């Protein structure tokens, strides 16, 4: 009984955060802010659903796999976001108007693009 409540809570919370991650892509103003939503909420959502799987099955091999999946997600999701954000910044994708860019950033990172709003 209590187990069922815990499982339902985990699955529902996971669904909620997955929805947030998806909605974030639609609603947030520019690519870098969207990456915030997908990495954080998306990782938490998949972590919660894996926690539900581990608690629900409760045997060693399932738990080991769930832990491995979560570890790999935590390793790969930020790297993917980092690469997308880096590529966007380097190729001069337009950022949201209020964005304040550190004046040295482009020079130090060796970016040749100029003339995007919010900087320079």
């Amino acid at each position, binding site marked *: 009984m209590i187990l069922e409540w815990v499982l339902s809570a985990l699955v529902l919370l996971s669904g909620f955060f997955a929805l*947030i991650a998806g909605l974030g892509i639609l609603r*947030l103003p520019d690519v870098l802010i969207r990456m915030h939503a997908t*990495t954080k909420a998306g990782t938490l959502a998949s972590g919660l659903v894996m926690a539900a799987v581990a608690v629900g099955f409760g045997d060693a091999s399932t738990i080991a796999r769930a832990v491995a999946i979560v570890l790999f997600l935590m390793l790969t999701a930020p790297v993917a976001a980092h690469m997308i*954000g880096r590529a966007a910044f380097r190729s001069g994708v337009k950022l949201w108007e209020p964005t*304040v860019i550190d004046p040295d950033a482009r020079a130090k990172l060796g970016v040749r693009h100029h003339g995007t709003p919010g900087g320079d």
Partner: protein
Amino acid sequence: MSLFLLNILLAVAWAALMGTFTVGGLATGFALGFVALWVVQSLFPGSTYHGRVWRWLKLIVLFHYELIVSSFQVAWDVLTPTQRSRPGIVSVPLKAEGEAEVLLVTNLISLTPGTLSLDVTEDCNTLYVHAMFADDPQEIRDQIENGMERWVREALA
């Protein structure tokens, strides 16, 4: 590191004596061995094993806490109609040394509230992050330096 090997040996011994060669049996043996070694810590002067395990646990727990906080923050930002963020790209000087430390710090920063690693300079000592609330860049630098970066350096030291 030798205490770690000793701990594994104790776990195997426990599992063998109890006749429970399962993951659960080995885990119980490992936990009991850890406590036993902690009790006789003074026999191994200069050992950093327990402190190191403790700092890793601290890093893991604090990181999960931050991940949950940041997810709620993102949820709030997505669900409320007005965008209240004032984003910016901020440079953060890194004290972390070596590629493993830098990788761990940048990965964890991406998953904690308000910051997303964007790029690292060639010499690995300045990190550029995209911050959701960049009114005060110095505050963000301090937060990273005294938070995630310090925990990572303590754990890997």
